[in-house]
């Protein structure tokens, strides 16, 4: 076995793979600026990083659903704030094609290693990069959790409860839905009465949604047009102006080109900029620096190939549940609870596909047009928690890839099946997931193109997920049969990585407190889906945004109390 060759091959973009310390690497790289100084002991001279910008009050790393809302909030409070985003700042109107492959740049394409019995697909499934983060390609499906989602341990004796109640979060859900523009049904058919309805009527139902209505009605399952963070009508956006209504492109997962989808780049980010926030795209953070008391003093990052340092009084990590724990692990930061990287959860997202005599043309319209939460706590279920049901539209390349992986069709059989594309519709679930000792993130020996250890994600669905999937598959096949589908098949998948820096009441078993502050480091906060104590039975984006605003408010309160 050519082991050495394999190790070398592991560096896909071999940019000085051996030296991991970026400062040391900069020095050894014989940079002209550093060459002037007599460098005898490079390790003792981290100040060699040249550009040291002024200190900011708050530095935010990552501009997705976790970073953008709090960036705006902190800027509006008059603080000097800055955000570093690993990816570029796009102009969707001119840059975004209606083409899946051409839009690959929206995904975090650095390689992550997927281990375990149910390896998690990353890339387009689970990650994002660019100013706006994963919201640039989220489906915009934004149901709220139901109150008991936050109390899985209280109700079932397994998993973890949230240290934040639904009542505390509700005003934030109201605020986010109104600000970014969520289209949805009022009143909402499931859960307690709400103090505020959706600001816009639901988006129109596409074919898949109509088929799900047809099938579910026959089985007595209640459905409703879903809540989607895309505009069903023109909407005035502070900091942006008028945003146009959705044109039913159906390409939400490959980027919205007309600003109708409520991604961070057309909502909270312009608001933040309007209030003075500075945005630095193409900035990849490698190091978090601390003083002798253990407080964060700043970060080192790479910007267009150049090492830079940014000092800050407070740091907000919002890189998502892979990059956030990776940064903590790489920097040996906030690790005293032993929970960083652990409790990795992923939503069961089983899909069922069928072929219909009707013309479907599944690429049109908001993909997740319809919802049912009748299965939120199904009676007589043999599992903990529950799931939601949704109709799904799909783009052709994504669908073809799933047919190849899931159905294992190839050759003429695959080509023949794909000719049914305009007659195919899907339905899927999004279900809760329990943490398990076998499911975690770690740093691998193998290095990436930056010379940093690749994250390895271990995920094996456990008994509870298996039972939930079995329950859901039976129901979904039933709905699709009732709707008239033939050639029905299921595709097993898991979506969203959650829980790798969880929130809790004590630093003994959690990384951050209920306000998002890291127990070990008083001026370090985390705001993204890594802090979720449980997975919830709904898509995470809306809750990430709500928590982000709450973390900002709690931070601002603490500043007023001067107890920080």
């Amino acid at each position: 076995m050519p082991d050495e060759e394999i190790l070398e091959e592991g560096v896909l973009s071999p940019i000085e793979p051996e030296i991991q310390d970026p400062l040391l690497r900069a020095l050894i790289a014989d940079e002209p600026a550093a060459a002037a100084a007599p460098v005898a002991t490079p390790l003792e001279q981290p100040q060699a990083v040249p550009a040291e910008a002024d200190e900011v009050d708050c530095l935010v790393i990552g501009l997705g659903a976790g970073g953008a809302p709090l960036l705006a909030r902190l800027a509006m409070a008059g603080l000097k704030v800055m955000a570093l985003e690993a990816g570029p700042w796009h102009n969707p109107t001119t840059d975004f094609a209606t083409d899946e492959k051409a839009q690959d740049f929206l995904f975090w394409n650095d390689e992550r290693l997927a281990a375990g019995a149910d390896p998690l697909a990353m890339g387009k499934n689970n990650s994002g990069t660019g100013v706006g983060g994963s919201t640039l390609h989220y489906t915009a499906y934004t149901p709220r959790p139901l109150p008991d989602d936050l109390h899985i341990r209280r109700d079932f004796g397994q998993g973890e409860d949230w240290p934040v109640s639904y009542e505390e979060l509700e005003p934030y859900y109201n605020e986010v839905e109104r600000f970014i523009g969520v289209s949805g049904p009022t009143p909402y058919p499931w859960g307690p009465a709400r103090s505020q309805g959706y600001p816009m009527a639901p988006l129109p139902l596409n074919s898949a949604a109509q088929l799900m209505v047809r099938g579910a009605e026959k089985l007595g399952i209640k459905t409703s047009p879903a809540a989607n963070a895309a505009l069903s009508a023109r909407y005035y956006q502070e900091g942006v102006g008028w945003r146009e209504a959705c044109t039913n492109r159906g390409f939400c997962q490959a980027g919205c080109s007309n600003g109708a989808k409520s991604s961070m780049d057309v909502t909270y980010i312009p608001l933040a900029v309007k209030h003075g926030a500075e945005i630095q795209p193409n900035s990849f953070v490698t190091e978090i620096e601390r003083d002798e008391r253990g407080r964060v003093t700043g970060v080192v990052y790479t910007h267009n190939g150049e090492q830079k340092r940014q000092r800050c009084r407070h740091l907000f990590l919002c890189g998502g549940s892979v990059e956030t724990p990776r940064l903590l692990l790489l920097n040996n930061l906030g690790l005293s609870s032993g929970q960083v990287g652990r409790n990795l959860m992923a939503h069961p997202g089983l899909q069922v596909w069928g072929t219909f005599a009707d013309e479907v043309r599944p690429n049109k319209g908001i993909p997740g047009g319809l919802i049912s939460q009748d299965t939120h706590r199904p009676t007589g279920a043999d599992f903990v928690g529950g799931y939601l049901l949704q109709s799904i539209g799909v783009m052709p390349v994504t669908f073809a890839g799933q047919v190849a992986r899931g159905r294992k069709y190839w050759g003429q059989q695959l080509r023949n099946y794909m000719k049914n594309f305009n007659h195919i519709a899907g339905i899927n679930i999004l279900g809760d997931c329990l943490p398990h000792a076998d499911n975690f993130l770690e740093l691998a020996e193998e290095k990436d193109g930056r010379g940093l250890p690749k994250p390895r994600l271990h995920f094996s669905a456990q008994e509870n997920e298996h039972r939930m999937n079995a329950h859901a598959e039976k129901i979904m096949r039933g709905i699709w049969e009732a709707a008239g589908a033939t050639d029905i098949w299921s595709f097993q998948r898991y979506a969203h990585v959650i829980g790798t820096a969880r929130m809790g009441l004590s630093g003994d078993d959690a990384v951050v407190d209920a306000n998002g502050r890291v127990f070990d480091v008083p001026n370090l906060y985390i705001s993204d889906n890594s802090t979720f104590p449980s997975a919830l039975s709904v898509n995470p984006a809306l809750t990430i945004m709500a928590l982000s605003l709450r973390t900002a408010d709690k931070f601002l309160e603490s500043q007023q109390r001067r107890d920080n």
Partner: protein
Amino acid sequence: MSVPTYPNGTVRALLATEHVSEATRAALQSRLDAPAAYEPQLLAPETFALLEAVAGRLFPQPDRPDNPIALAPAVDQRLAEGRADGWRYDALPPDREAVRMGLGGINEIAQELFQADFMALSAEQQDAALQALADGNPPGTTWQTLDAGRFFEELLAELTENYYAHPLAQEEIGYVGMADLPAWTKIGLNEREERELKLSS
């Protein structure tokens, strides 16, 4: 249900219209205009030829005898540039190694089953060798260290995505989602915009 068929030429006709954005047109046109000849950048010529032969069975194109949609160049290019799609099965070695090992392993399967290299086999024999790989437990020492099922899945998925990204493959399945300007207004069951293709069968 019988297999639907769609008229040729429609996507190509739509590309020139105002229904397609500049960025979209550029992406699709570049695939249509890709030169037929390709010099492999990473794989050795004989390895690349083997990859082409495998792609030719995973996506047989008897309907395009003279100019099949080329699927192997994009794989070689990606490997040469060190691009990834964001993840890799931990069970597999890094992509370059996996592709080289796996293609060698396909020759091994061919030798074990038919005592000849893959490229010397008949189409039926080649399909049998690939089916043995797809089934996950093929003969050959390669497959004692390389996970056959995962390797096949990854290779097939990449070729599949390359194939259906091509405008001619999109014509084949009656997909015209690229022509989305100014909007889709008819999105319900059995509704069709004028520019959407009718079934010809």
